[in-house]
């Protein structure tokens, strides 16, 4: 039996509603997680955590109402937990051998990149969420406002302040 056919057979047993949800939103959750953690391995971990929770429980009403907004919040919270846990385990990470890093970014050196990831993790949760929805998921101000249940002008001000904070961080020696 080939790998493909085995997988196909197994997947027949997966709840079709869950599978649809997973396929539709996987990349969205993955990108959200990656934008916060900056590591592929952590992003994988976050996606797994978010969907495994759904698989284990009934779909909550919030999810049915607005799946994207629900999954976004879940991914964001799980990613922040990863960051906190990473800080707690800082010594282990230094000693460890397998810390998959993000691919290099042209034009942004590694130190700056790492500092900016840290700076985003330090922003207020709502500010970080707005930043991610704008730059990672290409949402416009109105879409962000709708997703987070706020106003367009609040989103605009938050974006401006977040950018200013990041720039300040970059200017520090």
């Amino acid at each position: 039996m080939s790998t493909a056919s085995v997988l196909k057979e197994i997947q027949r047993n997966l709840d079709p509603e869950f599978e649809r949800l997973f396929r539709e939103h996987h990349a969205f959750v993955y990108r959200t997680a990656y934008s916060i953690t900056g590591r592929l391995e952590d992003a994988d971990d976050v996606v797994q955590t978010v969907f495994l929770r759904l698989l284990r429980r009934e779909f909550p009403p919030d999810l049915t109402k607005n799946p994207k907004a629900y999954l976004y919040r879940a991914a964001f919270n799980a990613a922040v937990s990863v960051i906190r846990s990473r800080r707690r385990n800082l010594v282990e990470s230094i000693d460890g051998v397998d810390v998959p890093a993000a691919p290099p970014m042209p034009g942004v050196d590694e130190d700056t990149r790492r500092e900016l990831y840290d700076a985003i993790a330090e922003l207020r949760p709502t500010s970080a969420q707005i930043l991610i929805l704008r730059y990672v998921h290409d949402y416009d101000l109105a879409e962000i406002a709708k997703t987070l249940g706020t106003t367009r002008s609040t989103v605009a001000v938050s974006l401006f302040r977040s950018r200013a904070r990041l720039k300040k961080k970059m200017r520090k020696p």
Partner: protein
Amino acid sequence: MNRRTDEVLNQFLSEFGNPPEHAIENSRENLLDLFASSNVQLLEVVEMPVPPTQPFRFAWAAGMALAAVLVSVLVWNQGPPFSVSTAKNDDRTVAKLSAEEAGVTLPLTVAQDAFEVASVKLVAPSSQAGTMAQRFDQMQSLLAGCSSGYAGGTRLDPGRLTVPAATVLTLVMVAYGQDCLTAEAGPAWATSEHYEVSALLPAGTPRYTTQDLAKGEAPEVQRMLQKLLADRFRLVLKRELREMPVYTLSVGTPGKIKLSPDETRLPNVSPPPGFPPPAAMGRGQNVNFVLPGKHQLSGHAVSMLTLVKSLRQPARRIVIDRTGFSGLLDYDLEFSSEIPPPAGAADPPGTAPLPTSVPPVPGTSLLSLRDALAEQLGLKLEVAKMPVEVLVIQSVERPSEN
């Protein structure tokens, strides 16, 4: 300046949430497989070719390249990339046992910690992963004096354990931190059939690295593996104390071991052809090379236990620390692959045969391990017989279909 900052920030923001497409694709497929398995409580044995993971491929490529020069394996830190540790072979488990206790069976309890989800699949022997695993077993046999105990490609990532191909005996050794010399298989298939294990760790499991698991220093994960073996393979083990030939390491010439100075240093070793020169070693690091006919071990500010663990493979026996040295030491040892017995002393019966297929390096006269230890560190390696705790597989079954 302000403009440059804006440019860099814009560059970062346009890229920071864009992981490579292949990473997203891989994640989706792996998780679909995993969730589907979890949903149907996948316990069945599925015979399917298993594509090797990246580290496995690397290890295999390294193995092939080095096989071309007979037996050469690059070994970082504690032995080969995943040789089972000798964590239990120190004074705590061996020296305190009296000779009268040999032959005694000790109680053994199975932990109740469990993986959140786990799948066990038989690896087809003719598959790429199966073939590689067999070759790794052969290599391990040649290097360590006993087969099994080498789970090439094993990865312990946050939240997940992946073993691409390992025998039941190897899984037992990983789960119990046992050396291959002190684990005894049951039926023949327990050392010939390879299984792939994929498992999710429950939330809250402490983060360990693959190296931690290899060194037998990931107790929570090891307990979960013990439970998996008991549940899926109906594994029943017993511990026995048996008299075995070992080496003891003691101080022969006092004053030769010196405390490691506080500095970074380069290891004084030459890597095999095709491998990059080792970088500067931080404190607490060690590298081991196995080259045709010779071993090179280098350590910087490491404990005596680390040295003793590194000696396990070239000595092909368990080494017991009797030095009483509690500080951190530096060493650069180079010695021939064989350990000639001291004049007039025959190896005790049951000793693993010395490697005969590793020829000495032509034109060189390397010291033996025993002489290198005496000359550089003033340490004495002696043959001894001691009661050692051996893990014996009493009964085991192939994982049944669910």
